[in-house]
């Protein structure tokens, strides 16, 4: 239902599911696409604007794979490095939006390590060029997650529509399925 000017109320899982499908079609494997879904959803809930940010890569699959696949991969490697050496770093040559990293950063914190390099006041669109993993984690507060689950998320109508449309490529036509059935 309509949430306000140019916004629509959606459930968090809807964002996840649409991002997953778009990411699969763009070429990410199932695990990476699921992670992209988690990152965009988490960023939308906690930072806002992630659906809009993700919508900008829908027409550029290579960029989608680079930002939402390779970006979080670099963060994972930084965590592995941090656990071995006490500190690890991830560099993103052209910058990766927080929409592609937010849940990964929270997961690292959940495993007890801090992540430095995110600017104060960052949004889902904010480009990150380098992150440092190590040191103590900041305590997490998921009040926004609880609120989103209870009340829904107000997201940009046009961007959500773009994801909905793009995700249809994940589906196979009923006619095709009927045709190939025994």
């Amino acid at each position, binding site marked *: 239902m309509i949430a306000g000017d140019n916004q629509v109320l959606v459930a968090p899982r809807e964002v996840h599911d649409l991002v997953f499908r778009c990411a699969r079609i763009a070429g990410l494997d*199932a695990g990476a696409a699921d*992670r992209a879904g988690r990152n965009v959803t988490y960023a939308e809930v906690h930072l806002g604007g992630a659906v809009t940010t993700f919508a900008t890569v829908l027409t550029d699959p290579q960029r989608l794979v680079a930002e939402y696949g390779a970006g979080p991969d670099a963060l994972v*490697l930084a965590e*592995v490095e941090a656990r071995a050496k006490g500190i690890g770093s991830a560099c993103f040559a052209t910058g990766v939006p927080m929409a592609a990293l937010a849940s990964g950063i929270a997961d690292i914190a959940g495993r007890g390590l801090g992540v430095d390099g995110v600017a104060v006041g960052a949004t889902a669109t904010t480009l990150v060029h380098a992150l440092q993993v190590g040191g103590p984690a900041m305590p997490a507060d998921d009040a926004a997650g609880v609120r989103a*689950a209870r009340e829904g998320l107000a997201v940009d109508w046009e961007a959500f529509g773009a994801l909905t449309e793009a995700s249809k490529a994940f*589906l196979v036509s009923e006619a095709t399925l009927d045709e190939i059935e025994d």
Partner: protein
Amino acid sequence: MSSTNLIVADALQAELAERVDRIRPASYVMRPDVLGAARLSRYSFSRTMLRRAVADGWTAGRAHQDLDGEGRGESVYSVDTGTRRFSFVAFTTTIDESAHTDRVIADRWEVAGALVDGDVDDDLLARLRVEVPEQERGRLDSRVLSLTRGNRSVRFFGYLVDELAAGRQPDAHRVGDAGYILRSTAFYANGKFGMRSFAGYPDDHPFRVSYRAQFVAAWMFRELGYDMVEHCARVKGGDRAVGFDEVWRRYFGLGNATGLGLVPYAFKHPRVLDAWVGVREVALADVRDRELVSTDGEVLRGWIARARQHFASGSDDDCTPFLNSQALVPVLDDVAAAWNRLANGTRPYDALYRWAEEQGPETSELVVSLLLELHDGDDDLYDTFLVVDERSSADPTMSVGEARSLLDERFGWLGDLDLDGPSADAFWWVVSDNTEEPRRARRSRLAPEGRDVAVDVAIRLWRFKQALSGRDADEPVVGVLADHPDHRAAFERLVASDRRYGEPRDNTCALDYLPLQIQRFQLAQYGMDEFKPKSTDWLRVTLFQGAPRLAELGPDTTDDWVLPARPMARRERQ
């Protein structure tokens, strides 16, 4: 790294751990043919929902109904749990008989309904009037908890109206086996189409229990069927018309048609599956451990007789691969005879179960459901067992050696599935563009191209295991994933699969994979029975048959409403 450390210490896991030497092993319980023999039990969702309603003093009834002579219009039912009110809103119409289909892909339904948290004001009703009949194409918001739809029974709706309109009760020979008036197909919830997410229910919310909202909606859906028939009969018959009498007023349940949509859920939620199975196994272990209490012995004898009477009045329709109702009668005779032999021995319930397991899954799972009728678990506690945290965090520093150990502990059974065989990967799972119905596609006829649904758990884990072979045991798994990103989902599943009963030991992609088995398990957990397969992929079932009606809720309402006798049989008894 031992599996014990990785079993998450939640309440259910603690109960299972206490009974670790008495619970049934996953190697038996999670076998496809055993899952595919499950039956509704005391801990099925329809039963637990109604026990909760009685225990908490819920009241429920019809708040508003505006139907024409054909049953077309709007109905609103309400339920008051003492702390909150809910409304079930249903929009009814008629469609041509030729347009009836049980498949999810239908675009028109005779009944479309939604369960709403709170009362429904004019604005919301106007919005629901537009969105609910649209089903998957509609947009809802967090006030809506469940969305459903269905059709009338083509065979019996009109007949029931005609009989009541003429002042007669139905002829048991005509409808006794039907079991339902309306047949639903889906109960969407948990964030679909903008509805409230399950995680968004406050801790004290009465529906913060698995599938509680869906089953309240289903119970009201069933009530709507009775009301529609009686309304249409009154319009048609005027003063001659009668309502259903005592013999019939509980007999009809709600039909349901279920397709492949259930399968992905079962394979995507290992901790949920573990909870559903685990609750049953805890209760079963407790009953098997008892010595005979004389009244219990009679109670069990009574349940065996009741089940026999129920199935004896059922059909002999072909229900392959399951036993039909008539075929269950000799099974129950054997169960009764076994109980007579074993009742006076030591640990007789355990002996009965062990005898049943030797007879095969249809017998063992039937006996499990019968034995669970003797269990008197704390419903508050059992409700909490079913609420699981599905979040999982795969530690990227896990080594290849640790991953191999986990694979051996948790997925050692993969070696029994011939996953390198020529027919192991015959199918992939796909979502159709027609209302997003899950289906299977032959890999030889259509390539996935990134459109596959990741429910190919067995194949993925098996290939991940192969990818780990030859790698240095001390190497982090992320090194393998860097070379083979396709295994990332398998690694995450390996970590998330930290419960005993989380994995059906089956390969969803195999040429001979039989979806009916996991479907039956899920449907039994919901509280459905009368499994009537219509193909390898879908089946019809009935739920709430014999259950109390909305107006009957009260402190005297009992939980022994399942397996009702066919009305004719009841009359013959009298």
